[in-house]
């Protein structure tokens, strides 16, 4: 079972305690943006076979959204970090690069 550590309350939460929220760090587009940018925001997803950054909510715990880095091909979890981040923390990226030398980067 997938286990993620909530960066807020520190609980190692099992999957049944969590609600998935798909891809993280999407750039929000709205009125005034081009059709292409809005379509990309709404529907285009990286959907990588490998390192993926995604949103999760500790639904049956503290209730807060957080972000996680996970490998979609092996289900390995690299780490979690707070949702108030514009990108993955540098040390997490270093950790992933050490484990996945072929990874193209965030």
């Amino acid at each position, binding site marked *: *079972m*997938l286990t993620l550590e909530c960066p807020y309350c520190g609980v190692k939460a099992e*999957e*049944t305690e969590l*609600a*998935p929220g*798909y*891809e993280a760090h999407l750039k929000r587009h709205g009125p005034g943006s081009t*059709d*292409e940018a809005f*379509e990309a925001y*709404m*529907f*285009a*997803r990286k*959907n*990588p*076979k490998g390192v*993926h950054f*995604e949103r999760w909510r500790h639904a049956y715990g503290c209730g807060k959204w957080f972000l996680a880095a*996970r490998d*979609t*091909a*092996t*289900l390995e979890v690299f780490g979690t970090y707070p949702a108030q981040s514009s990108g993955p923390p540098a040390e997490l990226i270093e950790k992933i690069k050490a484990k996945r030398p072929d990874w193209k980067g965030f």
Partner: protein
Amino acid sequence: MKRYSVFALAREALSYHMGWERAWRSPQPKAAYDAIIVGAGGHGLATAYYLGKNHGITNVAIIEKGWLGGGNTGRNTTIIRSNYLQDPSAAIYEKARSLYETMSQDLNYNVMFSPRGVMMLAQTHHEVRGYLRTAHANALQGVVTEFISPTRVKELCPILNIDGPRYPVLGALWQPRGGTGRHDAVAWGYARACSDMGMDIIQQCEVTGVRSEGGQVTGVETTKGFIGCKKMGIVVAGHSGQVADMAGFRLPVEAVALQALVSEPIKPCMDVVVMANTVHGYMSQSDKGEMVIGGGTDGFNNFTQRGSFHHIEETLRALIETFPMISRLKMLRQWGGIVDMTGDRSPIISKTPLGNCFINCGWGTGGFKAIPGSGWAMAELMAKGEPGPLAAEFNMWRFKEGRFIDESVAAGVAH
């Protein structure tokens, strides 16, 4: 190709069944083909078959990373139905269902299509309204369905508990011509017919790159070397995004795991397919006697072909109220497939930014039932370069234009 028949069976019996030929050839790839189809699952093989049968294009290679029909074609719950709400969906799924009816004769291969009837239970008032609407829509679309009463539900499926305390059965959407088929046989039958037309099915051959020049695909790099082509079709389900990435464009799909499981085999107790979408589970009985059970997808991106254990528990817990008799059944096997989900839960059969490259993907959780219709529409698109009436609405630009075929709202779940 030697035809299969009762006489062939008798003839081969005389030589202890040692004389049967291989159902399809396993050739090495040629240097180039008129058309390459990536993915030898049901949809890819059906595309190749109708390219040959309907359009006379037989210099075709079907390239498969693993083994033929080893992906979602071998991992589904074999349900065939076409009771969709939206017109484009109903048209292509009904085409597929009607082709299933004659597929065994057409392919000279027994795909064991069993039109035993599919019922989708209405267990909330919202669902009653929804299915009444679908039944009316189906009447206009020429798809034979009807909304039936709980009494009739009980007659058709006596093991159903229609008076459950939480979700009583209030009625059902009944499609008498829906049913099940033998999933592997569909892939095998198409493969045999394609091979007979002179097409090359190349298994254990992974596409590692797509070569293009001036906006046209010239061929694919594979683990068995470069293979040239004049046209390319991508029909790879869960890995559509990866192959599209090689071709240099992005798709609005995400890959998630969908699971199914079977129980120990028991005596015949259920001769229809029952789907319970409110509690999110569906069940039918296979010819071997196993109860074949499916549920919902996992909620996160996943390429591992195995799903979360707690989803199995959720599905079974939900079904036990509706089918109390399964509470003591032992479950034998569980498996997962990687399905490619689009934003509106409808498929993509489309041209791409590359002029001679076409894509068929996004069937999500409902691919098996669509195999012949999907292949028919995709073959027309590949042969003519323009979509026919079945495929026109399913182009990949509908997301930009806001012309969704919104089956996620219409079907809710399990579709």
